[in-house]
């Protein structure tokens, strides 16, 4: 019943699509979050002392097997300030068509490793997949 999670990440997030490893599942099931649409939402000040805090995390933060993904998600007119990472989709998963646009703001973020993140970014940006464009750095 229990998952072995001693070495597991311990992120925090305002919105997380996909998802933690579901409870009582070992191995986790490959259920993905596709087609989520987030509008006029606030995900700020999410913190973690042992990992990163996300405003909007699209993808699987624990890189579980089987791979869990979040595809074709869209984040519009949302605010994600004062998180470690405002918007992020994780590498190693399948990302197709995730978008964050229409004046969403995501300030005070870090760029880490090969993650697609933004530092003090605002404006229109999109990704197909892992290639982001039209980013304004403020």
């Amino acid at each position, binding site marked *: 019943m229990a998952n072995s999670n001693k070495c597991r990440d311990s992120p925090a997030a305002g*919105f997380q699509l996909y998802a933690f490893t579901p409870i009582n599942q070992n191995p986790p099931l490959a259920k993905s979050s596709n087609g989520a649409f987030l509008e006029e939402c606030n*995900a700020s000040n999410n913190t973690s002392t042992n990992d990163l805090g996300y405003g909007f995390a699209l993808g699987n933060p624990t890189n579980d097997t089987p791979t869990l993904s979040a595809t074709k998600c869209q984040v519009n007119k949302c605010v994600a300030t004062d998180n470690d990472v405002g918007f992020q989709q994780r590498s190693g998963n399948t990302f197709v068509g995730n978008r964050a646009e229409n004046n969403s703001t995501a300030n005070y973020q870090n760029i880490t*490793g090969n993650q697609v993140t933004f530092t003090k970014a605002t404006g229109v940006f999109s990704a197909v997949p892992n290639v982001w464009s039209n980013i304004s750095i403020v």
Partner: protein
Amino acid sequence: MDGCIKVELSDLLIDYNQKISLGVTNSNVVKVRNCDIKNGNHAMVFDGCKNLDVIDCNACENENNTSFPNPLQANAIVSVSNCNNVLLDRVNVNNNVKAIPGQGTGPFASLGPEVGVLLILAGSNITLKGCQTNHNSTSATMRALYILGTIGPIPSLNSVVIENHQSNNNTGDFSGNSGSLSGISITGGPGTKLVNCDTSYNVSSDQPPGEVFLTQGFTTGITALFSESIYITNHSANYNISEGAETFGVVIGDASGGLVIENSTFNHNGSIDNGSITAGIDLSFGTTATGSKGAIIRNCIASHNKANFLCAGLVSNWGSVLIQDCNFSYNESIGGKYTTTFK
């Protein structure tokens, strides 16, 4: 009473009876008014009744009764099973439930007997208005309000409406045993509506010491599985807390698509011991490979949730989810005990 054409009871006062205080089965018109029942076993049992009204009644205290073939009924203070056209209006089912560990069945069998303080088991057209299932405690898996139908393509539970319900301040004091605690638990109840309800301040505590990561004993304001088209509005599920286990404001999963949650708060849910998961809203729960699809979450707040491991305002692995005008901020993971493997 069994097989009556009409039953009317009012101003009934029973102070501790070792058997069932009020049992009505297979009757056509049942009206119960202004009754106060303190009972050693079951306060009120209704099975197979039609046109059942229970208004302005109090019921409390319960001990396990093994005479019931269904262990869920055995542990309920008030059970309503296989009834049609039911109204429970201002029915308070409060105080103590103390079950016997290790006698349960169902998805949490290993954790001890299941306790539905107020059990709705199958039936149709069931309305609860202004009821309370508060201040209960147990060493077992407990659902303060347990709505249970059949899991399968043909539901045995239809048209359940819960208005102005409170399931607050329930405690799972496990004393070394793991259990689970829900303010409102729905399994196999498609189309259930929760309107203006409160499932706050439920606490699971006293987990065994030395455990690193417990996957048992989670605490939730609302749990719903195998229940499509649930509608939740104006709900409060705040300050649900567990010690060493998962904690959520609301957990919904396992083929429960078509969900709507709006104008609700899921704040300050957290765990206070090692290795736990916390979320205001968790749509990723599930014990089968059956996923869910289709949710609208609108004008909700899930903030200030905290866990030692994973923490989020919203967790979802559903498809086709619309999240609008929500505030999921100040969620915090306080884990510092383990090596980070962020890749």
